[in-house]
C-alpha cells in the first residue's frame, strides 16, 4: 500500500496504520483512479478567505475607526445598537470590560448576554474574518475589504480596544491587544471522576427543586 507513505498514519503510528489498513481493506489507491480534478491554489483563492488568529491570510487593505462610522450606523446599528449595546435581542458588540466581566461571573451573574469584543474574543483578526464573511446579517459577505476593516475598527473602538485615530489593516490587526486573549485555556475535562456507586450512595434527604417559573417552554 504505497499510498500510506504520504498519509499521516505512515509516520510510525503503528496503531493508526493498523486501523487504517483494516478499515480500508480492499480499497486500493486505484479505487480513486480518475475521480475529481486537481485545482491550482490560484483557482481556490476566491474561496480561501479564512483568517487565522495571528493575522495569517488577512487580505491587503485598511480602514479607520472614522471610516467605519457611516457603514456601521447604516448596516449594523439596527441590530447591534448605535453604541454596540445590542438591539432587539441581537448580540452586543461590547460587554463589561475585563476584569469586571470576570468579577461578575464570579458573582454568578449572567455572562452570556454580557459577552462582547472586549471580554470574549481572543484575537482581532478573528473579528475581521467574522464581520467580512458573516455580516451584515441580512446580506452576509457583501462588504468589501476596506469597508470590513473600517467597520471592524469601529467595533473595536466601541469596545474601548483601539483609539479613535486607529487604522485597522492587514499590518496592524494582529497586534491589537484583545483584553480577553490571555484568559483562554484549552479543555481540561473530564472535570469529574466518579465511581459507579450502586447502593447507599448517600444517606441524607435529597433537596429537590423544581421550576421557579413555568410555561417558559414556548
Amino acid at each position, binding site marked *: 500500500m504505497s*499510498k500510506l507513505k*504520504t*498519509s*499521516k498514519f505512515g509516520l510510525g503510528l503503528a496503531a*493508526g496504520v493498523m*486501523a*487504517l489498513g483494516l*478499515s*480500508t481493506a480492499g480499497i486500493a489507491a486505484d479505487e*480513486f483512479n480518475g*475521480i475529481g480534478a*486537481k*485545482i*491550482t*491554489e490560484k483557482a*481556490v483563492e476566491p474561496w*480561501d478567505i*479564512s483568517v*487565522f*488568529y495571528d493575522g495569517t491570510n488577512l487580505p491587503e487593505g485598511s480602514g479607520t475607526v472614522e471610516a467605519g462610522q457611516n457603514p456601521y450606523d447604516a448596516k449594523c446599528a439596527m441590530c447591534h445598537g448605535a453604541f454596540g449595546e445590542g438591539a432587539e435581542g*441581537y448580540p452586543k458588540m461590547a460587554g463589561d470590560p475585563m476584569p469586571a466581566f*470576570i468579577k461578575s461571573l*464570579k458573582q*454568578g451573574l449572567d455572562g*452570556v448576554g454580557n459577552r462582547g469584543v472586549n471580554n*470574549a474574543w*481572543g*484575537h482581532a483578526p478573528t473579528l475581521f*474574518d467574522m464581520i467580512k*464573511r*458573516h455580516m451584515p*446579517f441580512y446580506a452576509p459577505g457583501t462588504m468589501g475589504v476596506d469597508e470590513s476593516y473600517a467597520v471592524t475598527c469601529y467595533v473595536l473602538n466601541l469596545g474601548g480596544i483601539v483609539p479613535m485615530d486607529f487604522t485597522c489593516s492587514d499590518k496592524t490587526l494582529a497586534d491589537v491587544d484583545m483584553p480577553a486573549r490571555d*484568559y*483562554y*485555556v*484549552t*479543555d481540561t*475535562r473530564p*472535570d*469529574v471522576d*466518579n*465511581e*459507579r*456507586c*450502586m*447502593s*447507599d450512595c*448517600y*444517606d*441524607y*434527604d*435529597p433537596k*429537590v*427543586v*423544581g*421550576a*421557579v417559573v413555568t410555561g*417558559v*417552554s*414556548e
Partner: protein
Amino acid sequence: MSETTLDQTPQSDAREGVASSDRRKFLRKSVALAASGAAAAAAGNAYAGDVKLETVTEPLKPGATRNILGRGVVSVPYGMPSKFEKHVVRRNVSWLTADTVASISFTPWQDLNGIITPNGLHFERHHAGAVDVDPETHQLVIHGMVDKPMVFSMEDLKRMPSHTAIHFLECPANGAMEWRGVQMDSMQFTHGMMACSEWTGVKLTDLMEYVGVDPKSTWLYAEGTDGSALQRSIPMEGAKDQFGEPIPADQCDMYKDAMIAYAQNGEALRPENGYPIRFLLPGCEANMSIKWLRRIKFVDKPLVTYQETRHYIEPLPDGTIRQFSLVNETNSVINYPCPDNQMKGKGAYEIRGIAWSGRGKIAHVDVSVDGGKNWQEAELVQPVMSKCVTKFKLPFEWNGDEHLIMSRATDETGYVQPTLMQLRNVRGTNSIYHKNSIQAWKIEKTGEVKNVQIENF
C-alpha cells in the same frame, strides 16, 4: 425492591450543602459496601401485581375505518406520519434567540422509540439559515498542506468507496437552559439538541490519502457555503492551541471517524442538515460538523474562529475561559416516563431512555428511583455502537408513591455521568455548554412527572 426503599421519598427539609469531597468519600464508601454484599436495591419488582383491573362489558364497535376505502398508493408520494401524530414535531424556544435564522430547534425524543431520529425531526442549528444548495454545481475543495489540491463534484464523491455508520450529533448547548436551575417542562427542551442518524459518505481518512496530506499538518478546517460560511478547526495528532499548548490527545483522534456525508438514514441529507454534503465529526460538538460543506484545508495551526473564541467557550469561575472543549461527554436521559409522558395509573411500566457518549460505546446505564441513593443496571437494547445513541430499559412497578427517577450512563472508557452539582462545583453556572449531568424527573403521587434538580447530590 424493599418497602423501605420505596418509602425514601424526597423531603423538603433536606440537609443542605454537602461538599463534593464529602460526596466522593460517600461514593467510595458505598462502592465498598456494595462489594461486601450489602443491600443492592432494585428499581422494580416490589409491587405485588394487585392493581384491580377494570372489566369491559360493552360489545365492541365496528370502528371508523372498517367500512370505507382508504387512500390509493402514491396519494402521498412522499409519505408523512399519521395525522394523529401531528404533535411530534421539532420545536424552538422563541426567547432563546432574536431570530429563527440564527437559532436552534429541538428533536422530540419524548415521542421517539428507537435510536434513529427521523430526518424531519433532526434538530436544526443555523447561523445564517438553511440554504438550498444545487448538487449539480456544488463543489468540494480540499487543499492546503496536501500533495494534490483537488476539487470534487457530488458525482465524484459518490464514485468513491463509501462509508456508513450510525452516529449521534449533539449541539454542546444541549441542556444549557438548565445550568442555573430548572426552567423547561419538556424533555424536548432539556435534551432535544441531539439526534442520531445513519450516515453514508466518504471517509475523511480515505480522502486524506488520495490528496496526500502532509504529515506535518496538525489541524484541518472545514467551511460551509451558507451565509455564515461557518468554519471550524479540527485537531489531528500533535495539534497545539494558539498558545502552543497541546489539545487533549483523545480529541486529536476524533477526525479518524469523520466523513463527508451525503446520505442520512438512507436518503439524501435534508437541506436543514447540510444538503448536499456535510462534514460529520462523530463525538464532537455538532457545530464542527459543518453543513453545506464546500472546503477543507489542511494546516498546521487552528484558525481560532468566531465560533471557537466567542460562542463555544466556557467561562469558568476561576476567571479562565475554556476553549476547544470539543468532545461531547457521556449523557443519558429517561424519555419514558418524563414530563411529556406522565404516569397513567398504578402498576407496570417500562422505564426507557437513551444514552450516548462522544468517547465511544455506552458500557452501562443505571437507573435510580430514589433520587440516586440506590441504582439498578438497566438492560441495553442492541445494537450498542460507538458514538451512537443506545437505548436502555428497565421494568418498573409504580404503586402511586413519589419517586425521583434518573439514569446514569457509563461509557467504555469508564467515565461515569456526573451530577449537576458536581459540574456546577467545577464550572459555575456560566459555562452553558457540555451539560451532560444526570437528569432527575419527579413522579408525583398524582402521576404527574416534573423536571427537577437535586441541589445536594
